[in-house]
């Protein structure tokens, strides 16, 4: 699975912003310390939140958490 990498500054800019007028971006931290958004957020963005950004595609490497808590 692939996701789109963000810089910390980009992450801060997206928090609280919608990508389609309804759904909010959810920048998430991966196991390598990279911030990312999903390809769904990237490709379905109809606002100008990502205007001019060419976000690199990286492998999804989720933070491993203990299940269940």
């Amino acid at each position, binding site marked *: *699975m692939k*996701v789109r990498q963000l810089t910390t500054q980009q992450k801060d800019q997206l928090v609280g912003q919608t990508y*389609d007028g*309804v*759904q*909010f*971006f*959810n*920048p*998430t931290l991966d196991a390598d310390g990279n911030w*990312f*958004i*999903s*390809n*769904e*957020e990237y490709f*379905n963005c109809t606002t100008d939140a990502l205007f001019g950004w060419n976000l690199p595609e990286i492998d*999804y490497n*989720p933070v491993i*958490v203990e*299940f*269940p*808590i």
Partner: protein
Amino acid sequence: MILANHGIIASSGGVSFDADAQAFITAAAITDSTQQTAINTLVTDLKTANIWTKMKALYPFVGGTAAQHRFNLKDPRTVNAAFYLEFFGGGTHSANGYLPNGTTAFADTKLVPNTILQLNSSHFSYYSRTNVSESSTEMMVYTSGQSIIDLYVRFTDGNMLSRIYNTTTSTTSVPSSLGLFLMNRPDANTIKQHRNSDIISSSSSTSASTKPNINLYIGSGNNNGTTYGFSSKESAFSSIGDGLTDTEAANFYTAVQTYQTTLGRQV
């Protein structure tokens, strides 16, 4: 408007619906006649079974768009106090419901169990249209020092896992992650798991003395304010409310499955 068995019936465009159904149809801008009928039948079925008043939040995920899927059938106002969903991350919305992407997507219900739910009577349900075993939670909230609510429809080990205000996880093997999964605390000392019309486990479990005091999420967990265990299971319905008797749980499944069948998305 006329009076009928289920209360005041609203008439719109020559078709009469239950007033609560009509309020949702209007708020969520449901224009498709099949979807309107499905909602109306769901509401009247729940009222006939005396389940309607036990519900705090009903998310029928009908209409096909994120904006329409935000509405709570029980209280279709556009305010947090009505548990009007707020979607985050890359969810996909279609005629089949809400598909969280397993990486960033979830829905914030705005429902805080500590202020809304009863310690000794609660249920949570998730109608899954995706057959996958994964390390994800479909409904969950936990705050340190409080008890936990969590539902794992089908974990990587093939089990349905759930807790409602207790520390011991109910663990039951399920053949797939398809269908209506309901975790139920009908009283202070009992925990039950239901899948479709079956009670798949029942155990003695005493409620803790506390309830989580932050928002419950759907499609992932809310672990002390941090998302946890993103799900990729498409949901065609979800509910939060009081505990259900066995008969009520069976009638609840029948009503939900009838609703899904009408919409052609039953599993």
